[in-house]
């Protein structure tokens, strides 16, 4: 066991996997000498050399396109997109090649590729260093989308993502990179993809959240002594529908919290799943507490991001309903 933060936990998983499996290559802008602008790939170049830790030119399409070709022909690339805001130049490759390769070739080609990218606000990064674009990927069949909320899950989910014989979008809540250190095992372990974590049992209200918002939610609930059941989805595609329906049925009151804009944010799908499968159990409206339907502003980002106050106001609203 070691006390490590989220960056260190990712670095450690990648390092250990690379030591075991020569097929793994790490690639992206500044991932080599610089160790990544957030240091997730620190020291890997020294250990594994520049054939396996590849500093790339500034073109995300090129990074993902090249990684796709590698994955089709026997390698296991872990590609970094420096900020999720910069993944869009590669969007065609992701939607039209990566996500559809297995399907269109009848399973003859697969793309075992992990695309890591930091997302979310809270670092004073403005419009282009703060976006939470998970919806764009969750809507895309063929992709698997995960996001950890703590060092343990980060480490385990990365191992599971690597083991999957399909492409995984690995979203890293940059605000939590160095937020806490927790005890994490030194040996490799997995956190199952597709399974949510019940962070807290409770009876009065279900709060469903993930990624960067998890500590904010836990803090709000604990501080205010709410008898809430809190679910951390961890995987956004495919979502853990049983965990969602179970908690919704149990409490009958659901609040969903995420940082991405509300309209067609992941909360919309959670809400729709419940409205389809647990309608009779509902005692109150399903309320979403989310980032706003605006670009992400540089000033006043603290207002943009869901906080304790907004979460509690939603919780109190459904409790009082």
């Amino acid at each position, binding site marked *: 066991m070691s006390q490590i933060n989220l960056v260190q936990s990712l670095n450690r998983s990648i390092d250990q996997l690379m030591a075991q499996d020569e097929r793994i290559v790490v690639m992206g802008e500044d991932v080599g000498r610089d160790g990544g602008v957030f240091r997730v790939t620190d020291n890997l170049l020294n250990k594994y050399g520049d054939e396996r830790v590849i500093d790339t030119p500034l073109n995300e399409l090129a990074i993902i396109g090249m990684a796709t070709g590698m994955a089709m022909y026997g390698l296991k690339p872990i590609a970094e997109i420096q900020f999720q805001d910069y993944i869009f130049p590669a969007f065609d490759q992701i939607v039209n*090649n990566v996500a559809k390769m297995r399907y269109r*070739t009848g399973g003859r080609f697969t793309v075992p590729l992990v695309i890591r990218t930091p997302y979310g606000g809270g670092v004073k990064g403005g419009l282009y260093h703060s976006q939470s674009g998970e919806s764009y990927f969750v809507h895309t069949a063929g992709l698997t989308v995960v996001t950890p909320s703590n060092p343990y899950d980060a480490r385990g989910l990365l191992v599971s993502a690597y083991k999957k014989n399909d492409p995984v979008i690995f979203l890293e809540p940059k605000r939590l990179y160095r937020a806490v250190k927790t005890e994490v095992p030194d040996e490799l372990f997995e956190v199952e993809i597709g399974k949510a974590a019940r962070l807290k049992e409770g009876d009065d209200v279900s709060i469903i959240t993930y990624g960067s918002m998890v500590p904010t939610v836990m803090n709000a609930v604990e501080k205010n002594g709410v008898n809430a059941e809190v679910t951390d989805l961890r995987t956004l595609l495919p979502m853990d529908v049983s965990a969602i329906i179970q908690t919704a049925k149990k409490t009958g009151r659901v609040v969903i919290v995420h940082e991405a804009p509300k309209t067609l944010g992941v909360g919309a799908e959670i809400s729709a799943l419940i409205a389809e499968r647990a309608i009779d159990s509902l005692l109150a409206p399903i309320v979403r507490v989310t980032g706003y339907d605006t670009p992400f502003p540089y000033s006043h980002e603290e207002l943009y991001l869901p906080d304790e106050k907004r979460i509690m106001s939603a919780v109190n609203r459904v409790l009082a309903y």
Partner: protein
Amino acid sequence: MTLVGNLSDDQAILAYKNAVRARTLDLKIISAQRQGIIGFHVPSEGQEMIQIAIGMLADKEDLIFTYYRDLALYLQRGVPISLIFDQMLGNSNDLQKGRQMPDHFSFKEFNFSTVQSPVGAHLPLTVGAAYAMRYNKRKGIVITTFGDGATSTSDFHAALNMASVYNLSVLFVCENNGWAISIPTSKQTRADIYKKGAAYGIPGKRVDGNDLISSLAGLQEAFDYVRSGKGPYLVEASTYRIGPHSTSDDPKKYRVDEITDGSEKDPIRRLENLLLTMGVIDSGFVQSTRAQAKEEIDKTLEERMSITPSNPSTIFDDVYENSSWIQEEERRDSNVAD
């Protein structure tokens, strides 16, 4: 292998035969399309010879990323016409389970990769494949084909830069047929395509893609360069699109100014004339080659048409290695399930 100079009669005859087979196949597919038997087609008419030349020079272990208009290349590399029809019909024998439109092949067993519709999107993949081959110390180079329109795509730029920066063994062959649907090459770019490598430090060369000898000579230089590990190379093959862009296209709308029907550029006619003049073949041979191709192709289509269609329920497979609950639930709720 140094084919040009000592191109044998047998090789030339095989090339000719495959070109005729490809042309015959094209025409057959077009007529099948008109009859509603096949859904769609992008004919290779006019571009056969550069494709044949690539097929002649590529080694078995070389990996080829084609685009959607490369019929003759498949034939030259030995892909059976039956497999081609299976794909175009989307029957239960189709290697891709009927998932893709006609002409979007994936003949992995012949060391071809996979074809997509988005123009140019395969180009960055070729670079990754070449990287993987070198990494795994696999023999062979990567060859890829694409149209003149594709040189405008972002994928082209990305691929050439990456191939150059990592000094990868990729041979880029642009089949410049003069058109991207209705856009003439002159409106696509103001540079010569074979010079576009200059932006990446990649050498280039133009060949007469309608002429087998010129294609082989030019390509040989390019193959040698790439095989020797010097890095990527860009060939521009001037060809001519004789027919429409596709069976959905009506070139009369935009090819109004053309002063030629392209027949004098027809690469098959040119090879035929050369071989006739040199006495390698005679007109009887021409007739029998055409007749044999027609018979083979007619027979094969008839045979493949009798194969059952692909199983509807498979539309839910292969989204992932293991379907998620979403696909399984959708399969259950679908009409397929009845």
